[in-house]
């Protein structure tokens, strides 16, 4: 198996910083902002984004940051091995009227985000939902696009993208395997 690094540790850090700024810019500040990471690596990226925002804006991290597990909303439960669901944490202020930014590591078919939108509906009614991803590798199967993208990475279908983050993998890089 061949693998090559497409994002180094500093590339990832730069991308996270840029996305954080773009979110603040498009939201015109941090008011009514809720950032929900999709476990596992989306949740880590969401935390990095919120930590970055906290450097520029005075925010209460707990009121902004959350996680949204989408396991029970997936459409491939019957065909893939059973996954153990992860934790969903919705900030105490709820989601009603908030601008929710969903964060995931890789945007591919769009099915995960479809499930996330479905799951979100069970927790409240945001005024808007945005999507931030570290990598957009194309091959969409649903009409879904990201608002904030770390890097667009054209791939072939049989290639595998692996996002490695210090918090879960000790490494901090994105590699592509063929």
């Amino acid at each position: 198996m061949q693998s090559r690094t497409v994002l180094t540790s500093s590339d990832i850090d730069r991308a996270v910083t840029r996305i954080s700024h773009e979110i603040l810019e498009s939201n015109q500040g941090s008011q009514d902002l809720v950032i929900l990471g999709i476990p596992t690596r989306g949740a880590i990226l969401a935390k990095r984004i919120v930590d970055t925002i906290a450097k520029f804006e005075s925010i209460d991290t707990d009121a902004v940051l959350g996680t949204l597990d989408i396991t029970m909303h997936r459409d491939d439960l019957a065909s893939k091995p059973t996954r153990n669901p992860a934790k969903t944490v919705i900030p105490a202020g709820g989601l009603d009227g908030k601008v929710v930014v969903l964060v995931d590591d890789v945007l591919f078919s769009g099915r995960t985000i479809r499930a996330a939108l479905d799951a979100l509906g069970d927790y409240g009614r945001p005024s808007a939902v945005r999507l931030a991803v570290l990598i957009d590798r194309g091959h969409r199967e649903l009409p879904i696009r990201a608002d904030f993208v770390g890097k667009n990475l054209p791939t072939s279908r049989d290639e595998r993208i692996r996002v490695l983050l210090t918090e879960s993998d000790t490494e901090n890089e994105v590699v592509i395997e063929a």
Partner: protein
Amino acid sequence: MKHLVSVADLTREAAIAILDTSLEMSEVNDRDIKKLPTLRGKTVVNLFFEDSTRTRISFEVAAKRLSADVINFAAKGSSVSKGESLKDTAQTLEAIGADAVVIRHHASGAAHMLANSGWVKGSVINAGDGTHEHPTQALLDAFTLRSAIHTDARGKGLDGVSVAIVGDIAHSRVARSNLVLLKQLGAKVYLVGPPTLLPNALVKRADGFSYSLDEAISTFKLDAVMMLRVQLERMTAGFFPSEREYARIWGLNADRLALLGSETFVMHPGPMNRGLEIDAAAADSKNSLVLKQVANGVSVRMAVLYHLLSGGENE
């Protein structure tokens, strides 16, 4: 995992995975919209050869909250009474297209039979078979105890926790399932009851036993006592002389509750015979987990249904 017939089928990891999922399910049960689309299009049949409204409702709610279709099938007859046989009933359910059959049966081994017969293709969940096992009860007991002991229970077992199961061990499917599951999770399990209801073979698998509840309380540092329901027909069969004597020696009353101390949890699978195996003082004390056990039933059964019914063929 295809079936849940016995807790012995669960590795420690699998049991903890179910308990962790139950934790997520209990959060779903706390929110306004108590529904997940997870098992949309699946059909769950509650096949009850024995009346148990509580268990049936618990499974029914669990399945419905996961968006499965639920069919309740109360089968009165059995091949003993020359009614419809288990096989015929099972084949009827197969024709309906059941993805899971939740079976409650008065005969030990009925769930095992159904799971291994080839009569049904779906998953089989044992909701209590005779005096054999009641795996979802043991899972909800373990879940309740784990949540009571650990503030962040996720990923944890019951290592070092000591539990006494008290009463009619011989005829209790709850005791059998708990003995195996609690030990699998690392707990120490003690069996307490009259010698007539404490089979040697089970005692050998426990970490200790006593014929006296008082002795058990003073000897084993108990984190929880699990009181079993006394079936009154055991008295007429001569397993113990009278209700009064049973309550006096093996009942959990206010005095024994005080001896146990404030750190020990009180559990009971229900329905309770108040004044017999458990007093109001114990059942309603602040250490009692009885109501939590009932509430957790749905979450644990949702987790079990999810683990059995999701997942492809080639695991």
